[in-house]
């Protein structure tokens, strides 16, 4: 499966996302923000980083990029789109998913190995998990606090659009401990933690059995690939 990874000026984890796709058995395709051509990919990843320095609002300037016209159209037509961290912020700025992000409540950048609970195991990117499963995924962000008005929160909670929740520690003050959300259809998923950093043994988060051995993130990528294959 060809999975596009879009590089924006200031994208940082784009190569990591490509590596994760490869480790999951997919074929990563590097896409450039300034182009309009999705090169026939079947799924898209908006990777983490500080596109445009996070200036103005995280993800805001990148969400105006030329390629986002195609990303929005593809998402609306049902193509799987994963927004990781900065990509999650872009999805929110582009209104592909509800809510918005502001500065972490404690005002600092934070990096930690974060435990998440999978709240929705039916989206294109989470179907390899089981509902309620706890996974460990590295988190690193400055503007990770997910917020929305009460009505929106009630709606996404009610309709199962909360895909992940922080367990144990809420690292940034997100409402309802929300770590990731999806659109109503379940093809677009955004989350603050970085699954691409938990895909290769030796370079992932510490786990109880061995250091740096966490590969829970791999399931995001195998989920989308296997679902495509089974279609």
């Amino acid at each position: 499966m060809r999975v596009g990874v879009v590089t924006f000026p200031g994208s940082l984890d784009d190569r990591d996302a490509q590596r994760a796709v490869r480790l999951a058995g997919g074929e990563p395709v590097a896409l450039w923000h300034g182009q309009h051509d999705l090169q026939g990919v079947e799924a898209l990843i908006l990777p983490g980083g500080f596109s445009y320095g996070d200036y103005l609002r995280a993800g805001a300037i990148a969400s105006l990029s030329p390629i986002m016209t195609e990303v929005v159209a593809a998402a609306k037509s049902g193509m799987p789109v994963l927004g990781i961290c900065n990509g999650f912020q872009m999805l929110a700025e582009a209104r592909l998913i509800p809510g918005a992000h502001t500065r972490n409540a404690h005002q600092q950048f934070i990096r930690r190995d974060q435990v998440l609970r999978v709240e929705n195991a039916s989206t294109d990117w989470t179907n390899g998990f089981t509902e309620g499963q706890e996974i460990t995924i590295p988190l690193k962000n400055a503007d990770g606090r997910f917020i929305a008005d009460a009505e929106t929160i009630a709606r996404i909670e009610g309709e199962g659009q909360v895909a992940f929740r922080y367990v144990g520690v809420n690292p940034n003050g997100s409402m309802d401990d929300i770590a990731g959300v999806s659109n109503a259809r379940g093809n677009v998923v955004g989350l603050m933690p970085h699954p691409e950093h938990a895909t290769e043994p030796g370079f992932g988060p510490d786990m109880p059995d061995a250091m740096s051995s966490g590969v829970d993130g791999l399931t995001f990528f195998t989920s989308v690939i296997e679902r495509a294959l089974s279609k």
Partner: protein
Amino acid sequence: MPTIVVEVMPKAELLDPQGKAVAGALARLGSAAPDQAGATFTDVRIGKRFELTVEGEVTEAVLAEVRRLADDVLSNSVIEDVVGVTVLDAAPAA
């Protein structure tokens, strides 16, 4: 050259942790210096102030475009309100 000021504030109903942190700092300073004027700040909110320098005249059309940019680009309506679009030191709008 004329400058247009766009002011954006976080929505009142949303918590502004940064504002809260500053409010806390002001409160601590206040109680540390009780002999001061002793103003009590019940709330602090922190927003943004954009200064856009425009080439040429600020026509009604230009102002309308800035208002649109303020809504669509300079602010995010999910969390922010545009509270002001004003022209600074310039000829009045045509």
